[in-house]
Each structure stands twice: as C-alpha cells, then as structure tokens.
C-alpha cells in the first residue's frame, strides 16, 4: 500500500537525508532552518546516528567534513548568515573532495535581513561563496515531496562526484506542510560509500588518483582506516600531500572544475511544462516556480503560448536543454526572489533578438502568478500574438 504522509519541508529534508544514509548531523540554530536540526536530534539517535549542536556554523561545517572523511555520510543545515560562515569549509570540502550536503533554507538578506521571510538571494553565493576557482552542485526543489526526493539525490551526487552539494530551499518551502506518497524501497537509489574492509591490506591508496584527466571521474572515497590517507586544503598530489609544483596545481584545480563541468548533462535535473510550442519561456525555480506554473496555466487559457522551464539543479546550469529552448522562443521571463542572479546565467545563453523581461522581488514576499502574467502581457503586447 502506498503510504501517504504529511510533512513540513524542513522535516522532509531531515527525514530524506536519513533515508539517504546520513548518520551524522552537526548544526547551529538559525531561522528558518532550525526544524531540520530539531528533527535530526530526535531521529538520528534512533537509527544509531549522531546529532551534535556545535558552537557555531563554522564548527558545524568542519565537523560534518571530519565525519564524512572518517566514513559517515554527513549533513548540516543553515540559512544565509550561517551559510556565509560555512564558506571556507565548503572550499575545504571542494579541495579535499569530501562528500557533504549543506542545506541552506534561504531567508532575506543581506546580513540578518528578513529572518522569517523567504528569499532566493543566495543563488550566486551557492555558486561562488567560497574563494578560488571551483565547481559546485546545487539543487533547489519546489515542493515538500521534492525536498524528500532530491535530498537523497544530493547525497548520491555528493558521493559520486566527491563534492559538497548545496541544497537550496527557502523559508516558505521549509515551513510549508504538504502531503505526498512516501517512495517505496524500489523507488529509492542510494549510492553507498566503499567500506574499509573492501580495500586490500597494504594496498597503497591514492585518494586523488584519476585515470583520465581529460574526462575526470573521481574514484570513490574509502572511509578512514586501513588506507591511512592524508588530506589537506593545500594544493596536493594524488596521494593528498602538499605540493607547490605549478603543473600539479594546474592539473588539480582544472580537474576539480572539469569533473563537474564535463558531467553537467548527467547531473542536470529540470522540469518543463508546455514548452513544446512555447513562444514565451518562463524560467523560475524553487517556490517561485509554483507561481510560474499557475501563470502558465492562466495564460494558456487565454491561448498565449507560454511554457515553464524549471531548473532543479541550479548549478551546474542545465545549459544544453536551456540553450535549446532559448533558441526556439521569442521572449523569456526570468522570475526570481532576488535582483536577477540567475538571469545573469540565462542571459549568457540567450540570443540578442530574444526579448527579456525580469520579474524580481526582494521584499520578503512571494512573486505572485499575476506579477508573472503582467510580464507576459507586457511582452506579448509587442511580439507575441493571439491565434
């Protein structure tokens, strides 16, 4: 029998993570992400996992990286101010290729901002928050069901590509309650870590060895133990030891970027609605995509050819498909609760003759379907015609 559950978004993030095999959580209280910590503190000990409330977000980020390297799938959750504090550690996870999941339930910024209101202001911080050249994977679901589903994906991607994965949510998604059908065992794929027992005694383990540099795929991480490897945030050789050689530095930094960039199509997850014949393409993600969906339905009733593209992997940008769609439409609307952070990426893929309309909001309120429809009206008053 399919099991229907009613869950809050934050709760779904916590329970989905446990389903994915997360057995260590370190965090620090912050609105609107605190419920994730609360659920973890209640649920993790039941399954033999460990929850700890650290002294700050810096320590939380460090602790989950330590636990992951030691062999346990780990996660933390925070919001804007805490996410800022975690950036140095995220860079360390990038450099040491440590699978970790960082949930950021976005609230209004900058600084303390609007702690209890939704925002999509950390899109660029998710991409470029930590210093230095690097690639990142960031997912952003649109419903409670998707939070549960895609946090499992986040853990799998973290393991497969040996990278920190940023899991974006927003205050509304975090606090809303929705029901959904709990996925069955068969519907859930879990990527498991290699155990210490699976490597041979005395086998020299090079944690950063890559066979094919042209198309790098990281080898899986083995938990700490028999192999006795070294990890460092310094530029390092394949064995993990500090090395300031220019060739090694160049090769490492490029590989860290390429291992995700070259697999962008594999990693990309997105959703489309009525894009087949669309002349106006709306691009929206997270909670805003739900208003956009409504706007498409209303516009279609008026026989306006509007479609929705919803990136779920915000980073890397699902470029291949997005480029294809952008080449077919005459207008594009990018709706987001920030002042055009993702528009920046979309516009780099858009031809000059495509008309562009941005719908932006930074007042702590959601973008309404009407606001998106107004943009459609404005655009179609020029180019888009009725049939």
């Amino acid at each position, binding site marked *: 029998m399919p099991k229907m559950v009613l869950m809050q978004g934050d709760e779904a993030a916590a329970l989905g993570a446990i389903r994915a095999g997360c057995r260590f959580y370190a965090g620090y209280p912050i609105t609107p992400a605190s419920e994730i910590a609360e659920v973890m503190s209640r649920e993790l000990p039941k399954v033999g996992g*460990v929850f700890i409330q650290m*002294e700050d977000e810096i320590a939380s980020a460090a*602790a989950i990286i*330590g636990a992951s390297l030691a062999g346990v799938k780990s996660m933390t959750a925070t919001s804007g101010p805490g996410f800022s504090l975690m950036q140095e*550690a995220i860079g360390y996870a990038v450099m040491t290729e440590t699978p970790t999941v960082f949930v950021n339930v976005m609230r209004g910024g900058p600084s303390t901002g609007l702690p209890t209101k939704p925002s999509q202001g950390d899109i660029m911080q998710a991409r470029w928050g930590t210093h230095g050249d690097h690639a990142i994977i960031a997912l952003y679901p649109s419903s409670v069901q998707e939070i549960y589903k895609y946090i499992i994906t986040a853990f799998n991607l973290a393991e497969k590509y040996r990278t920190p994965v940023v899991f974006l949510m927003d205050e509304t998604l975090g606090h809303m309650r929705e029901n959904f059908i709990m996925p069955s065992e068969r519907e859930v794929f879990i990527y498991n870590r290699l155990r210490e027992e699976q490597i041979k005694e005395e086998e020299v383990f090079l944690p950063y060895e890559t066979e094919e540099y042209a198309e790098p795929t990281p080898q899986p991480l083995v938990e700490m133990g028999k192999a*006795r490897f070294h990890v460092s945030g310094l530029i390092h050789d394949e064995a993990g*030891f*500090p090395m300031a050689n220019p060739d090694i530095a160049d090769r490492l930094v490029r590989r860290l970027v390429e291992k995700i960039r070259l697999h962008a199509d594999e990693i990309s997850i997105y959703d489309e609605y009525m894009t087949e014949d669309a002349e106006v393409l709306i691009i929206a993600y997270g909670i805003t995509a739900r208003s956009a969906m409504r706007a498409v339905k209303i516009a279609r009733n008026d026989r306006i050819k509007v479609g929705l593209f919803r990136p779920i992997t915000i980073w890397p940008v699902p470029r291949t498909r997005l480029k294809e769609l952008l080449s077919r439409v005459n207008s594009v609307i990018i709706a987001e609760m920030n002042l055009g952070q993702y528009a920046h990426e979309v516009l780099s893929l858009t031809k000059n003759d495509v008309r562009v309309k941005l719908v932006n909001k930074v007042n702590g309120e959601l973008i309404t379907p009407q606001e998106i429809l107004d943009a459609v009206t404005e655009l179609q008053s020029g180019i888009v015609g009725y049939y």
Partner: protein
Amino acid sequence: MKTKQLLKYLRIDRWPTVWCPGCGNGIILKAFLEAVDQLKLKKDRIAVVSGIGCSSRATGYLDFNTMHTLHGRAIAFATGVKLARPEFKVIVMGGDGDLASIGGNHFIHACRRNIDLTVIVFNNMIYGMTGGQYSPTTPEEEYASTAPYGHIEKPFDIVKLALSAGATYVARATVYHYNLLVRYIKEAIEHKGVSVVDVISNCHTYFGRYNGMPEPYQMLEYFKTNSVTLQKAQTMSEEELEGKIVIGQFRKEEKPCYMDCYRELQKKAQGR
C-alpha cells in the same frame, strides 16, 4: 629511545620537514611518537587532525589517518571524526594561534563537552609561519613583528583556560623536559575525555630573535631555568611566579565523555 624505532610511524618520503633547524616541533613530534609506541597503538586506529601553521604541518609527516584542515578549526573537524569513529584515538595538533586565537571557541567548547580528544598545543608564543606576529600567548612586553614597541596585551594561560572550560586532563611541559612530555602525552592519549597538553616550544627564528634568544639552545636554556614544577609553584607567591613556566599535571579526573553520554541517549531514543 632510539629514533630508528619510531621511523615506522613517519612518512619518511615526505621529509625534510618545513620546520627550521632546531625547531621545537620535532621534539614534540618525537615525544608523541614515543608515547604512541609505548601504548602499542595500531596506526590504523589513530587519526591526527591539525589546523594551519608551522606545527600543523606535522600531520603530513605522520603515517596515521591524517587531516590537515582549516586555520583554527582542527578541533571541530576532529569532533566529527571522533563521533563518526569512536573507536579511533583522535589527536589534535596545533599552535597557540591556531588553537587559542582563531580556534579559541572550539577549544573551550571541546573542553566543556569532554569529548574524547587529545589536544597537543605547540605553544611557541608567536605566529611562526606568517612571520613572527604576536599570538594570544605572547607574554606582555615581549617583542614580535606586529609588536615592535613591546606587547601590551595579557596572554592566555592555556592550562587555566582548559581547566576553567572543564577539560578532564590538563598538563604542561616544555620541549626541554622531554621525558615529562612523553609521559604527559601518553597519559593524555590514554585518558578518556578531553585531554590538553600545553607544550611550551621554541621558535628561535622569530620569538627568540625578537627577544634576545636567536639560538635554539638559548631558548631551551630559558625553559630550563624558568620552569617550576606545580608542587613548587604552590609554595611560591604571585610575584615569585612572574615570568615562570609552571609545569606538571594540573588535572586528571574520570568523568563520562561525550560519546558515553550519547550512547545512553541513543538507548533512550531507541526505547531500550
């Protein structure tokens, strides 16, 4: 002990070290390895976590599970390692700047939690790697590259800090007192709960050069003549203790450590 016997714990192929000739870090490292050898610990079951700085480079030379992490955050990383793998002996190595300044918050909270970690502070009273700036343990009136007119701040006493934050094993030695150092590190590793060993070490390159002791032997001589045992210190007045290094074991008490308490919590959560 013959150094040769300890070579099996080192990644010899990663030598030479980045440390200056005569640096006290080598003495601390050897004392640590001698303690590990005496305890007959398995290399696979030891994790050593360090931050950033001269002393933190130690992890790269040790053949254990090693992590060279972020400046100040070694204790936080080590907390994750310990909670993920409670069967590991987890050692944190770092300097005074790393553990008492940028990492001071993690230090006091680890002490408060009584998490089963051994923290070895390579306390040379200066930032060595960045060029001799004053640290939280630089004594008043001493000179540093950022204290050209003499230092005006009161230093942290790492031992007092650890004691008041709740550490359950606290000891101090200097690199001059090698045998004592081995004993304290050994006891600290054996201790269940957080253990802190404050090791006063020589950075003759910076601290020494700025303060009239540019040769390693001069600093060791200084440690020798200015150290007093805890027993003797208890009979001395505050004025007499001015400028002295008090060495000894300051606390050793058995208390449930974090993971013991968490295991009880897990049982409760599972209704056992």
